[in-house]
């Protein structure tokens, strides 16, 4: 016989049936069911197969620690493997499938592994599968991997939404059982801002399945009254279906709320899960206690269940575990289960109490066997009988259900996330965490407190103390203290003499002998035993198994559990979906998008965009008839050099610098001189790191005696700003200098080419002739007949006569349009960063392709820029080191193929002609390359040993990745207009 639903009782709504399927079979449950209780109601106890031996497994618990009842729920992109049936709130349309079985959970061929188990003991795989070496990847490992794992994840994207929020409170109460409710009530009445979080879909914890009276009232009434009072308090928020998964520094707690995990019809406008980061001034951990399994042969046969879980299913969902139950207990709680089973009219075949002296005053029908042990449970896919050792003799009792209780372990997981170590208490026969840590107090069963009455008092009292520390002097405990009369039994870590496999970690199939083997082989340390046997590494992270494993190790090592200690509790308390952790930061919201103020202008001119960090930059502007990007880029380059072009350079970092010491400041952060830069002039500057390497470059203009305008590269805009602020605030606070980032305030437009002056003069009111506004001029200008003020810089990256015009961002598109209009008769074209790149390589100008964090100024031909006169600048001292002055440093050269019909790629290495390819013979590498339509050849910049001394040397450009070996010659890095005639035109 198997489990079934009783005709009456439970906190279920018999008027609301819910249809679901398990392994394709239609089933019906009721509102108020979990998937686990609904499966039990349908007589389905065998729900999964174990990891290694594929043993049939049933539902063991009614909560988060469930090791067996892992199922795959959902379809398509909503498929969720390894879902604990015990935590799934049943809903109509739920589809669930069993896992790790083939062809079916009832008939699983993998069960053959059980026969091989003597050969598959702990760590057997470390001792074999080594020969031949190549067989590991090809033969052994694929078989092992296929057999391992639990459920199968989907490859389809998740259609649902997630979100993340912050919440703040005076008191966070974790767990809405008796202690948590009492704490929340106490704090709520004191007027504190309270968050009460509980993982269940119904708050109440153990009160939900309690049949005894509490302080004269029924537990259900007490719960209802407390919840009603809390609901009326505007300062109390109850987060149901919310698991607090981690305790982080600064008393921030991570919690995940299941918002739409209880429906098959997901509202796309709401998240399915929500992460809360809860900043709490104080917290009460009222997470309760976990019942310990007993370790005896066959303790995993479907039908064997934790006593408390059986009681919970009976009282909450009116589930009968079977017709005839044996209770095996080392604790009082086994008797509570027996009492409730008998009250429901069910047969209890026997109460097997491991204790000789701890038998409670039992008044039920079932016989009690004191000082007796269940030695073996028997059955295949369902329990049929148990063998009991009683008075020195073995007796067989037929039963279809077995409730076991090995006592209770406080759930202290969260309290140990920040380094606190659990300490063994002989008095409580349990590991306890420090009861009070900064910001966190443990209350109730989680602190080893026994009965419901004492938990109520403990939660209330501890909340009152925590609140008083926060200044709520009126906080009064909602429940008065009572004496704790609960007794603690001597733990029973294992039953001796079992014939069958006695499991310690159910999910990972770690049994008693595995732990013995670990000790024998020297892996007796609790951490080594865990790693060697995998005990505690399953999805329940040892919630059920660790305590027994520690006890068993202690016995084997002949020490106390205190000497064995625990493994480390780490987040997360229960597993957490990637989706929840990701929140809304996915798809195009993975990272913020930055768009230039000229983005729409570029778009309407047909730009192809490229991601550059967070920015989208215009890459090239294809015209009708152009079929390759190269065609467009070649045309843009040739046109700029012949006529003119316009390019969006708004993404460059822009920093306004003010203050009477601004010049002195710049003089210290740049390696070249800035103190005497005249007003109205721009200067190229090299900024070093303190270790002497070039950090960034750009031009800085002096717009006034105490006002400078700095441009940085796009990639380093934020970094340079932080660096300047560091230097000014932390290194030289005595300097009067201030900064404001204005990157987003200005649209900046490069106009380059021989006709650029002609075109710009149409917009600029002032005279910009060479005489009036020579190279490196920088000034504020009036535009379009005084309609607008902009900033004009005569600087050039392309090597052409060129300007950069900055206008307030909102005017960018209008001005760009006006320049295009004015330039139309002169053949202007828009050009993108590709053409810009070609022209800068033609001119030998460097970017971060060369400034890669390992080059100093002299590597790039900037030796003369490094001031020897200045007493100090960032990076000066470190430049003198031997390695930075060495002859053979990689230095900038140009490189071009001997045969212009051949080409090479960036990232190729340089080898001396005829040299054998090897690292020792590596001469350097190509840092930038492009096709130059002006030279009709590929050209490149390269960083090469002794580079400047080797102009004219023939080399091999070596790109083995593409089998390209190009004969080339090293040359000056300036390929085009080396006299800078065009620049000064």
């Amino acid at each position, binding site marked *: 016989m198997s489990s079934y639903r009783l005709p009456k009782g439970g906190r279920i709504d018999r008027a609301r049936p819910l249809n679901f399927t398990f392994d394709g079979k239609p089933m019906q449950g009721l509102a108020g069911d979990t998937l686990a209780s609904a499966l039990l109601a349908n007589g389905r106890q065998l729900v999964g197969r174990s990891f290694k031996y594929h043993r049939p497994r049933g539902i063991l618990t009614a909560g988060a620690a469930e090791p067996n009842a892992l199922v795959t729920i959902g379809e398509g992109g909503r498929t969720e493997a390894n879902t604990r049936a015990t935590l799934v709130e049943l809903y109509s349309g739920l589809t669930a499938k069993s896992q790790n079985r083939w062809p079916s959970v009832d008939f699983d061929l993998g069960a053959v592994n059980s026969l091989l188990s003597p050969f598959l003991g702990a760590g057997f795989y470390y001792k074999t599968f080594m020969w031949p070496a190549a067989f590991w990847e090809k033969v052994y490992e694929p078989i092992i991997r296929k057999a391992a794992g639990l459920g199968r994840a989907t490859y389809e994207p998740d259609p649902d939404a997630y979100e993340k929020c912050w919440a703040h409170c005076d008191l966070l109460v974790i767990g809405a059982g008796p202690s948590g409710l009492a704490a929340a009530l106490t704090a709520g009445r004191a007027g504190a801002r309270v968050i009460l979080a509980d993982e269940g879909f119904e708050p109440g914890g153990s009160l939900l399945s309690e049949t005894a009276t509490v302080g004269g009232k029924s537990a259900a009434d007490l719960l209802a009254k407390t919840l009603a009072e809390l609901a009326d308090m505007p300062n109390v928020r109850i987060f149901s279906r919310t698991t607090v998964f981690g305790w*982080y520094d600064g008393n921030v707690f991570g919690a995940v709320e299941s918002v739409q995990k209880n429906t098959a019809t997901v509202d796309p406008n709401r998240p399915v899960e929500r992460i809360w980061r809860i900043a709490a001034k104080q917290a009460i951990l009222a997470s309760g206690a976990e019942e310990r399994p007993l370790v005896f042969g066959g303790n995993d046969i479907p039908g064997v269940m934790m006593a408390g879980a059986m009681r919970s299913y009976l009282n909450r969902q009116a589930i009968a575990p079977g017709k005839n139950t044996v209770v095996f207990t080392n604790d009082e709680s086994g008797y509570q289960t027996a009492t409730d089973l008998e009250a429901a009219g069910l047969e209890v075949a026997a109460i097997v109490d491991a204790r000789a002296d701890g038998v409670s005053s039992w008044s039920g029908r079932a016989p009690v066997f004191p000082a007796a042990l269940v030695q073996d449970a028997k059955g295949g896919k369902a329990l049929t009988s148990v063998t009991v050792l009683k008075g020195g003799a073995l007796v067989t009792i037929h039963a279809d259900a077995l409730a076991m209780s090995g006592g209770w372990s406080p759930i202290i997981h969260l309290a140990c996330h920040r380094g606190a170590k659990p300490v063994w208490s002989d008095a409580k026969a349990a590991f306890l965490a420090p009861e009070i840590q900064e910001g966190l107090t443990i209350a109730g069963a989680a602190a080893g407190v026994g009965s419901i009455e004492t938990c109520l008092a403990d939660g209330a009292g501890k909340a009152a103390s925590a609140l008083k520390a926060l200044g709520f002097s009126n906080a009064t405990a909602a429940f008065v203290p009572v004496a704790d009369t609960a007794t603690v039994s001597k733990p029973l870590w294992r039953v001796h003499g079992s014939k069958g496999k006695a499991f310690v970690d159910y999910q990972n199939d770690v049994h008693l002998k595995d732990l013995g083997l670990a000790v024998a082989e020297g892996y007796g340390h609790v951490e080594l035993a865990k790693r060697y046997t995998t005990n505690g590494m399953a999805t329940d992270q040892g919630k059920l198994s660790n305590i027994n494993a520690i006890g068993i190790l202690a016995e084997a090592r002949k020490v106390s559990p205190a000497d064995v200690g625990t493994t480390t509790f780490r987040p997360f308390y229960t597993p957490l979906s990637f989706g929840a952790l990701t929140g809304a930061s996915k798809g195009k919201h993975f990272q913020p998008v930055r768009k230039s103020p000229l983005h729409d202008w570029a778009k309407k001119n047909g730009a192809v965009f490229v991601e550059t960090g967070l920015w989208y930059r215009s890459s090239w502007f294809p015209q009708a008839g152009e079929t390759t990007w190269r065609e467009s880029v070649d045309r843009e380059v040739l046109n700029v050099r012949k006529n003119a072009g316009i390019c969006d350079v708004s993404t460059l970092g822009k920093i306004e610098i003010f203050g009477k010491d601004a010049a002195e400041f710049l003089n210290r952060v740049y390696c070249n001189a800035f103190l005497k830069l005249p007003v109205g002039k721009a200067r190229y500057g090299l900024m070093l790191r303190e*270790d002497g390497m070039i950090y960034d470059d750009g031009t800085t203009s002096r717009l006034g005696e105490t006002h400078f305008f700095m441009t940085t590269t796009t990639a380093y805009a934020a970094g340079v700003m932080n660096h300047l602020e560091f230097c000014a605030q932390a290194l030289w606070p005595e300097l009067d200098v201030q900064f404001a980032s204005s990157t987003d305030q200005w649209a900046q437009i490069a106009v380059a080419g021989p006709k650029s002056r002609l075109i710009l003069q149409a917009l600029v009111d002032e005279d910009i002739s060479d005489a009036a506004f020579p190279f490196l001029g920088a000034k504020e200008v009036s535009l379009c007949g005084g309609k607008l003020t902009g900033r004009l810089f005569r600087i050039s990256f392309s090597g052409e006569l060129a300007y950069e015009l900055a206008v307030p961002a909102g005017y960018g598109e209008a001005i760009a349009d006006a320049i295009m209009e004015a330039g139309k008769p002169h053949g202007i074209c828009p050009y993108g960063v590709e053409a810009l790149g070609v022209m800068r390589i033609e001119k030998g100008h460097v970017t971060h392709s060369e400034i890669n964090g390992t080059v100093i100024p002299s590597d790039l031909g900037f030796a003369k820029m490094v001031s020897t006169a200045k007493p*100090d600048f960032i990076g000066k*001292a470190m430049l003198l080191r031997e390695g930075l002055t060495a002859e053979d440093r990689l230095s900038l050269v140009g490189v071009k193929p001997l045969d212009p019909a051949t080409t090479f790629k960036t990232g190729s290495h340089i080898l001396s002609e005829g040299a054998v390819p090897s690292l020792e013979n590596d001469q350097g590498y190509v840092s930038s390359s492009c096709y130059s339509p002006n030279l009709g050849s590929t050209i490149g910049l390269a960083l090469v040993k002794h580079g400047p001394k080797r102009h004219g040397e023939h080399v091999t450009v070596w790109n083995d990745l593409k089998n390209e070996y190009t004969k080339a010659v090293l040359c000056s890095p300036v390929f085009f207009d080396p006299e800078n005639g065009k620049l000064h035109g």
Partner: protein
Amino acid sequence: MASLIACPHCGPRPKEEFTVRGDAGIARPVPDAGEDAWYAYVYLRDNPRGRHKEHWHHTSGCRRWLVVERDTMTHAIYAVSDAGTQDASTRGETA
């Protein structure tokens, strides 16, 4: 690391608003301090297990550089002050 940093200008703010730079316990040497002093400044670290001073920038806030004194074992923060108010011996002097 604490989840919140109490900026002296803005109050307690999430750590994510800040950018850490590194050790604030050693002063920038004077230019002619010699290569050993400069090497020590740029490359050597006390790296204490316990109390430690660090530069943090309130990047998404007031944009001030702060000195955060905290514990590298417990992650507790002892004090936060503005980097500009440190005494000269710890912030460095360029003469």
